[in-house]
């Protein structure tokens, strides 16, 4: 802190030692340059102290509290879901399916179990090797690569959003 301006700012801010304060006070009283600069900085300091704050919109507090209320309201919904309810619903569906299955099996004719089922029309199943040729395989692999790149891009974008 060497320049006159720096010393005077420290003096005005009250951030110098009592000894420095005393020295600067004397300099202001005796030295014309110090005196002039001191007046200048004092006026500028006063202007800064008088500067006005910007006013937010009228509904600012309301908007903040509304956002908080919305956040708070969504919290209990997430937190208060009782896992027992989910388990009960799952048990109900599993039970219903089991009962239906048992009923269906019970109502089927047990005597016909050993009978073989005859398909009226002779169905010829297609042989897969006819369709899997080299170009098809290449196309399939190319599609896989594109799909993988697409998914990887999606993952990176999601990661970038989370970080920022």
């Amino acid at each position, binding site marked *: 802190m060497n320049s006159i301006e720096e010393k005077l700012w420290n003096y005005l*801010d009250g951030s110098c030692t009592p000894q420095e304060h005393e020295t600067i006070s004397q300099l202001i009283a005796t030295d014309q340059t110090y005196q002039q600069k001191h007046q200048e900085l004092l006026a500028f300091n006063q202007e800064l102290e*008088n500067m006005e704050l910007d006013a937010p919109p009228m509904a*600012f507090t309301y908007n903040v509290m509304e956002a908080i209320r919305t956040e708070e309201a969504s919290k209990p919904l997430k937190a208060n879901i009782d896992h027992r309810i989910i388990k009960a619903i799952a048990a109900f569906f599993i039970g219903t399916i089991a009962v239906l299955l048992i009923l269906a099996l019970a109502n089927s004719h047990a005597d016909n179990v050993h009978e073989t089922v005859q398909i009226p029309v002779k169905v010829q199943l297609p042989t897969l090797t006819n369709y899997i040729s080299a170009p098809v395989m290449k196309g399939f692999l190319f599609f896989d690569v594109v799909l993988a790149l697409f998914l990887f891009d999606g993952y990176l974008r999601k990661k970038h959003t989370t970080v920022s």
Partner: protein
Amino acid sequence: MQSKFSDIELIEQTLQGNQAAYADLVKRHQRFVFTLAMRFTKTREDAEEVAQDSFIKAYRSLQNFQGQSKFSTWLYSIVYTTAMTFLRKRRLDTSSIDDENNHLQLENQSGGFKNDLAENKSRSYYVNQAIEQLLPDDAMIITLFYKGEQSLEEIALTLGIEPNNVKVKLFRARQRLRERLERNLKHEVSELI
């Protein structure tokens, strides 16, 4: 109407579930928080967003407030980080559009400048105008020191730097502000002539 309770009392009431107490805290600090946000964003819409985000973040982590520093110091550090994140994100997202916006803003500013010439502007207007033209860090440090009732040590806490560094930064910011103010006033006088 301002609440008669201190910041700490209002925080305790908020933590006990009284949201109205937090609304009082917001009312008490909103002007200063909004001004700080304006120092960074330069537009009212963005400043509103930053200020609102800051208050919401403060509410979320209110239970982490230890009370070792003033609530305002803690809140301003949240505003600072929120504003920095906002600026970084905006720079990343809309760097190309920004150039255009800046250009438009400058045009509007000079337009406004001429239109206002006939008006009798106060000295405070010019100070505020010069502060708006400073770099966000300079503008913030000056605002914190003069309007935030923050000591050099508290500003250091808010900005996460050493108090001596704050002293140097404040000195430089004031120097730059004076230069800017003189330049603006000279420009104004030459426009009048």
